[in-house]
């Protein structure tokens, strides 16, 4: 049976992000040499300043779109990429910087920068899929390196990657964990959060804080009962959803529902 001959070209692109997700690639210590054998790394600024020209077989895209320049640049990346995989909460939902979407960015710029007129930024931070077609998404803040290797291995073999999109709870139960919410009364977003981390936080007796974003099906209204039973206030619940995936629609709706209730309560008091 023939083995693979031509090594595909892999490129890594960065938009508004912290680099943590692309560093997961360097974090694949045991597999890094195998990966370097399997692909030609054409562009990866965290590892090498050498850049090979496109087109690329696989592009990993990290970060969100926050400037007019990046909104143009992602189109060029798409045009140069056969398969485009977005990696991490910024690229897949806008990231924590999407908190700006619900506030006045000009005011932020005024407060933070001495010369705000030099800042050329969009009013919103948006996921890559809002701008170009995305072939696969890897969630997480940061992504899980095993999932990254699974997707790369699948793409190199010409297979569809198998990335589960169900709740974190399923992974918790597969590991034999004791539910932190039911047995300890710890608020946990596991039931509405996308699997992929291997239930990392609950395994260490902490509640899930949703860094992989919404699962395939979410009932945040239903989960409210359990979060309140675990002692969370409506303010806590709204804040819990306002993190790395704040702009992911199901998490955004969950915040808005809480904020509406908080305002109603304040109105009644006032």
């Amino acid at each position: 049976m023939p083995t693979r001959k031509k090594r595909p070209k892999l490129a890594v692109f960065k938009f508004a992000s912290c680099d943590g997700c692309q560093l997961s690639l360097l974090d694949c210590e045991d597999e890094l040499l195998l990966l370097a054998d399997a692909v030609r790394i054409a562009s990866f600024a965290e590892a090498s300043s050498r850049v090979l020209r496109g087109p690329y077989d696989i592009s990993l895209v990290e970060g969100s779109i926050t400037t007019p320049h990046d909104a143009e640049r992602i189109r060029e990346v798409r045009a140069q990429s056969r398969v485009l995989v977005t990696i991490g909460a910024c690229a897949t939902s806008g990231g924590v910087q999407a908190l700006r979407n619900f506030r006045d960015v000009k005011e932020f710029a005024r407060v933070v920068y001495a010369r705000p007129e030099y800042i050329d930024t969009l009013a919103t931070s948006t996921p890559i899929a809002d701008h170009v077609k995305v072939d696969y998404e890897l969630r997480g803040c940061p992504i899980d390196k095993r999932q990254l290797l699974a997707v790369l291995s699948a793409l190199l073999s010409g297979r569809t990657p198998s990335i589960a999109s169900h709740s974190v709870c399923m992974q918790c139960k597969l590991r034999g964990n004791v539910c932190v919410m039911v047995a300890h009364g710890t608020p946990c977003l596991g039931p509405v959060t996308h699997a992929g981390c291997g239930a990392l936080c609950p395994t260490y007796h902490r509640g899930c804080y949703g860094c992989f974003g919404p699962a395939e099906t979410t009932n945040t209204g239903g989960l409210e009962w359990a979060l309140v039973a675990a002692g969370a206030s409506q303010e806590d619940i709204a804040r819990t959803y306002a993190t790395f995936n704040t702009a992911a629609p199901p998490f955004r709706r969950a915040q808005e529902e809480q904020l509406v209730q908080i305002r109603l309560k304040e109105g009644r008091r006032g």
Partner: protein
Amino acid sequence: MPVVLAAADLDALVQALAGRGYRVLGPVARDGAIVIDDVRRAADLPIGLEDVQGPGRYRLERREHGAFFAFTVGPHSWKQTFHVPVERLFQIRRHKEGFSVIPDEAPRQRIALLGARACEIHAIAIQDRILIHGEHPDPRYAARRSDVFVVAVNCMRAGGTCFCASMGTGPRAERGFDLALTELVEPGDHRFLVEIGSDDGAAVAAELPVRPANPEEIGAAASVSERTAAAMGRRLDTSGLKERLQKNLEHPRWDDVATRCLACGNCTMVCPTCFCTEFEDTTDLAGETAERTKRWESCFTLGFSHVHGGSVRSSIKARYRQWLTHKLAGWHDQFGTSGCVGCGRCITWCPVGIDITEEAAAVGLPEKDG
């Protein structure tokens, strides 16, 4: 004839089993719950602990009685021992002439279950019916089940979400055990009534420091089970239940439960009879090795009903209705038994405390009352 073992001699049972080459699995307190793990000595058992269970809530509390088995069932079940959560089935390796398939060897080990409850013994029998004697036998499950010694424990308490009495599956173990213990806790006299259910059980009992039980002890053990049966936290009216559920597939209660259900899959994971699995194929980076893995799957995921064009059950309502009607009605048609043994795990470990007994009862009522 039943015999009596002093509580102080319970460790002799653990050592007798270990001495026969069994890996002894039983209840152990960990992370705020009673889970199943290796038991090396009787002192490993959750002595003096009781569980307080309700819908979506589980807590352990310490009591002064010093009983070994005063709790009921926890988040784990023996399902994880025989129908394991994740296992690799085979590898495929590429070589010059083509490829070889290397199956993972069927697991062989002697396992002793220490403290299996009546509902759990029923659950194992149901999984055997499907995974050994059903249409699609699972040889790896059968291998794990082939050399098992069962020490049943008759529950001395009913949990807050238990309803085995109404399912006809407990609280007393009637069969399916090698030895069955009923713990008798009286001031200054802590002992076990030991019933012998098999030749293997008799052989193990013969190695223990036991004496014949007297009629008072036999009566005391019977009344433990009677008291437990009378104290069930829940009940489910099973008369005509299958027909009532199958007739009410459009009942408004399904919409109501769908507003509460999270579709997280916890109920199916903790259910001791749910047996669905998913298969995942992976390859290595070099493209030289591939492997197939089996893992538990849940009818609450979108992928479960994914066919060409999308998922058949896209709404939470459709998924909850599928789970409940399959478990309590469809199983009768498919496997000749209910899929529910009344252990209450799905009620306790549902993060939002959805109660299968309440939902089934509501759906079974005429709409105006539902």
